[in-house]
């Protein structure tokens, strides 16, 4: 295994990570970014479904050049962007020898984290009480969709569903049209990020008291927590929030406007009177700044459609970055709607190292989102690419558990560990 990083905040902590897909993995990604030792444990029969199917069709863009290759589960970009700097092992918990190994892993871990459907680990005999027998001060993070209690505890949930059940989707959409989902699944990173911070508070608490704890994460509750202002607003006004498109209840105008080129857009937000005036002058449209139809916030709201048309005509012949420059120079909030290629080529993100180039043994050099913040004393870095299935079995089982080569071979031969999937029901 790698030498632990010298000065990273969480270098002294080991997390046994049974989580899958996105919510749990985003939590442990932030931990890995901060230097924690993450042991990502998968099963050969049901590996992390972000690795994709065992035999996918060709041409799916998540694979390098659409080519799944001989081991597609190791070449999927969905998976490979979330597990950098983690160790990857496999283990079958349905077999007795696998369970003995698992219990030894628990005994040397500070944290166990999982986001199975509620009760899955319990059905294998592993409640928090049981896990604590192997590690008395264990912190166990369980993050099913709706938490570990209540009438919906056994229900399934995905991040996309949490956008709906938290009310986020209710507020998102074009004016006068139905609710709209986002392009991603916000519920996942929201839960993962909340969990990362609370888990650090729990580790700190353990450092002071010597006591572990059980952390019951409801992905839904974590998402509703971001809806608080609207939950209060509803009680104050008795009115459900209206879908506003890109407009704001606090200022006008605000929208994304068409630019030169195909599907090119620039966003503009005149967040106060001064910025509205600056915007009006910057467009160079004669009389716009003094037009009584747009003189006050109320007027601009009332005539927002017309204003959108006027601004849209001005933007439609120009480049999104060029308009942004003009408006930013005039102190007006503006920015292009960036697409994938724009993001990777953008001068600001290049300057800040927002995306990092990582060499994956089965993928080669590709760009990934990096560590989402900078730290002056413990800068950190992406230390290695996402693990292939079972990549670190030998290192972990030998160096951490002290198993001999022969013992590890035996686990391999009996199908308890390995590097080739055995399941067919992986979606």
């Amino acid at each position, binding site marked *: 295994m790698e030498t632990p990083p010298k000065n990273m905040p969480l270098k002294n902590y080991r997390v046994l990570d049974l989580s899958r897909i996105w919510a749990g993995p985003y939590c442990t990604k932030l931990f890995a970014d901060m230097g924690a030792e993450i042991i990502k444990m998968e099963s050969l029969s049901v590996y992390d479904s972000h690795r994709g199917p065992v035999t996918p069709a060709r041409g799916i*863009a*998540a694979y390098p*050049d659409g080519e799944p290759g001989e081991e597609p589960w190791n070449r999927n970009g*969905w998976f*490979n962007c979330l597990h950098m700097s983690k160790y990857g092992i496999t283990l079958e918990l349905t077999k007795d020898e696998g369970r003995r190994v698992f219990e030894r892993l628990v005994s040397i871990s500070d944290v166990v984290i999982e986001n199975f459907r509620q009760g899955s680990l319990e059905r294998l005999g592993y409640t928090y009480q049981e896990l604590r027998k192997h590690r008395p001060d264990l912190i166990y993070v369980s993050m099913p969709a709706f938490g570990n*209690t209540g*009438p919906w505890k056994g*229900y*399934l949930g*995905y991040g*996309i*569903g*949490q956008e709906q059940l*938290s*009310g986020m989707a*209710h507020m*998102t*959409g074009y004016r006068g049209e*139905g609710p709209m989902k986002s*392009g991603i699944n916000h519920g996942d*990173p929201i839960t993962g*990020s*909340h969990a990362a*911070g*609370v888990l650090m*508070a729990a580790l*700190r608490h353990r450092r002071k008291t010597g006591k572990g*704890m059980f952390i019951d994460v*409801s992905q839904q*509750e*974590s998402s509703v927590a*971001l*809806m608080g202002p*609207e*939950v*209060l607003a*509803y009680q*104050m006004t008795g009115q459900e929030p209206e879908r506003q498109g890109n407009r704001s209840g606090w*200022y006008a105008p605000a929208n*994304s406007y068409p630019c030169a080129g195909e599907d090119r857009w*620039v*966003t503009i937000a005149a*967040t106060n009177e001064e910025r509205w005036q600056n915007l009006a002058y910057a467009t160079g449209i004669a009389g716009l700044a003094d037009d009584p139809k747009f003189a006050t916030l109320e007027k601009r709201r009332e005539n927002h459609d017309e204003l959108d048309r006027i601004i849209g005509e001005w933007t439609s012949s120009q480049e999104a970055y060029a308009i942004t420059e003009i408006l930013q120079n005039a102190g007006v909030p503006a*920015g292009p*709607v960036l*697409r*994938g290629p724009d*993001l*990777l080529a953008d*001068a*600001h993100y290049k*300057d*800040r190292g*927002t995306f990092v180039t990582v060499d994956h043994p089965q993928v080669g050099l590709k760009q990934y*989102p990096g560590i*989402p*913040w900078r*730290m*002056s004393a*413990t800068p950190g870095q992406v230390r290695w690419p996402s693990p292939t299935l079972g990549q670190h079995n030998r290192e972990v089982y030998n160096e951490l558990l002290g198993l001999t080569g022969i013992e590890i071979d035996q686990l391999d031969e009996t199908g308890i560990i390995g590097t080739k999937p055995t399941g067919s029901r992986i979606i």
Partner: protein
Amino acid sequence: MPGLLEGVKVLDLTHYIAGPYCTKLLSGLGADVLKIEHPKRGDGVRWLGPFASGKTDSASGTNAPEDGAWFLYLNTAKQSVALDLQSSEGRRVLLELAAKADILVENFAPGGMDRLGLSYSELHKINPALVMTSISNFGQTGPYRDWKAAELNLYALGGLMNITGEPEQEPLKEGMPLAQLGAGQNAFAATMAALMYAEETGEGQQIDLAIAEYATNILENALMQYSYSGQEYSRVGNRGYGRAAWGIYPCLDGHVGIIAGPDHRWPEVARIMGREELSDPRFLSRAGRLENADEVDAYMLPFLVENNKVDIFKAGQESGLGFSFVATMKDILEMEQLLDRAYFVELDHPVAGKLIYPGAPIMPEESIDAWVFQRAPLLGEHTTSALDSWLSYSEAQVSELITQGVLTQGQGV
């Protein structure tokens, strides 16, 4: 009610959304959070409605409002100290507080702290173990450092907007400011990591967190498929990218989320919808459904528009399918699962009155007092008590500073 972070001292120089959500998580976990506010205007978010008093719009007038929904939610369990940072005496008091703090969180535009004479290097000199978390739109460095941005612009520059909305219409932002709130969450995690490091080594540091970068960090496959195969992700409206029967659909009393998958569960979807046509072999695979997406939708809609959202949700869930529904605010407040888990807390505020607040985003076991639930402070409510508890200022010292206009003490209501 001590909280997991009892005893941690936080100096909170944040305002509006991203910074306050970060420090709300710290105060919620029991840290001692002093929210430094301008004596007259307070946090700018105080002026944004709606308000409990019935004003529905941005407030005007001279007194900072106490009862705006955004302020009330984002500032629970904090203490408000009304301090004029522009005055030299105010700066002196702030430096004294910073010397005692474990954490300082700020979200001024980059350079704002320097202009106040409160740069990290200055603060580091008086408190080497201090964690200073700086949240900004684009970060403390880089060509866009000084750009102005609202949520709309951050969502666009962060890459999330390009993939939200209908392909033939303009790109759309989320209704909630999820870039700012999500960045606030990540700032909380980053701050906790730096705090643990500082407590172990005595070494503080500055965290530079950019809201736009939070957005770029959660693009997942929307970025990765371009990185891997050069194929761009695009807007697909309410259908999942490259999927069918996977998204938001209308129903009798609102909207539901249908999630078809994995393939071996599809017959269950067909059974729930009561349409034999859906069992057609052409629809059995994800690829087949995608190819015939409109036809699949047409067979599902009659069932959906005749049934209520909660019934459809439960019919799916009872069959092991991850259906959902689009909850309204009313639905959320009445949701049986949230009520059963005692998720909400009622807080009484002297101006806003009693309101139901979402509680802890994550709840450790009941036997541990992890969170504290207290209302947001009135402007300057804790000026005297905080200067006493942090700096042992006498009443006379505080009065003197109030006379000089450096501090104000909220009168209470």
